[in-house]
């Protein structure tokens, strides 16, 4: 019998605690839809989360789950995947978990090329604690800890992963729900460290302070901001500043950590082999 996304949700834990119009539910739908279409058994999938609104996602799934401490999801996941490479490990992190408190683990998991998938929900702020700025909040945005606008520029999560050596890097939004599901599927199937960054609305805080409090307006804002990566690359710097690229940004076939570790310690690596990043 074909599996449905509902087979990956835990009905006793629903409805979830996210605000009306929060993108987290749309991403959880896409994630579980992707698992169903890949026909992965819940017992063979470990959903690893950190802390924050999106860090609550593990409570709604029926897969194996690990709900760790803030920012460390990828470090826990690194241990899980390396200890049992047969598991499908998917790490769900917000912009706080992934590139703010957990930024160090993010770049090193990408560099090591741990064979797992990171789904990073970027809503440009800390929703759980009341809408403070994070390391992805755009310059001058208003948050509860930057009432006059934030004085720091935000990270570009995908470029960070690309620079660190990730094998598969893609960005989309919750507006693009079909592409979102398909990119998650592709990321899970792609060996090595794969990232899907999902730009997601927080109507309650970031939207209310900077865009619009209406979920529908936030969705349309995502549609307007997103441009396909090819088109983005042809844009002027001024135009790029007003937009973000969506689609597949990096697709590489660098061997993952565990494979390389086994080969090096088994003496099977030829001297002329590079690291897959041209070095």
């Amino acid at each position, binding site marked *: 019998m074909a599996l449905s996304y509902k087979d990956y*949700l835990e009905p006793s834990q629903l409805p979830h605690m996210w605000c009306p119009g929060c993108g987290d*539910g*749309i991403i959880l*739908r896409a994630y579980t839809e992707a698992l169903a279409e890949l026909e992965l058994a819940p017992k063979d999938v470990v959903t690893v989360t950190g802390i924050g609104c999106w860090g609550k996602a593990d409570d709604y799934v029926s897969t194996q789950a690990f709900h760790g401490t803030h920012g460390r999801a990828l470090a826990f996941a690194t241990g899980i995947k390396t200890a049992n490479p047969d598991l499908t490990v998917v790490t769900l992190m917000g912009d706080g978990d992934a590139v703010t408190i957990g930024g160090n683990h993010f770049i090193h998991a990408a560099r090591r090329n741990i064979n797992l998938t990171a789904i990073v929900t970027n809503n440009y702020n800390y929703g759980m604690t009341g809408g403070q700025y994070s390391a992805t909040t755009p310059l001058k945005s208003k948050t509860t800890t930057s009432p006059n606008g934030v004085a720091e520029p935000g990270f570009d999560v995908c470029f960070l992963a690309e620079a660190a050596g990730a094998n598969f890097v893609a960005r989309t939004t919750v507006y693009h729900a079909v592409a979102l599901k398909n990119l998650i599927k592709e990321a899970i199937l792609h060996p090595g460290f794969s990232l899907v960054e999902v730009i997601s609305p927080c109507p309650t805080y970031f939207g209310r302070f900077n865009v619009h409090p209406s*979920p529908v307006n936030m969705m349309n804002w995502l549609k307007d901001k997103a441009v396909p990566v090819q088109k983005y690359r042809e844009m002027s710097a001024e135009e790029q500043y007003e937009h973000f690229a969506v689609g597949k940004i990096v697709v590489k076939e660098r061997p993952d950590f565990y494979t390389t570790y086994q080969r090096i310690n088994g003496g099977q690596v030829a001297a002329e082999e590079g690291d897959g990043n041209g070095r």
Partner: protein
Amino acid sequence: MPEPKKMHIEIDKKSCKRCGICQGLCPQQVYTLAKDGSPEVTNPERCTNCHLCDLRCPDFAITLEVLA
């Protein structure tokens, strides 16, 4: 343009948080919002089974069913 099918659209009122995304983004204006913000299926015959409403529903509240 796909041939419209006869659709049944179920909204789970217990899960719905009345965010309005289904109504606001439906390409075929299948939904209208009641006074309290609840979506109502008022034009089911216009539905093309594109599934964008249920994929974009943050609360797993919409189920689409193709009627035979």
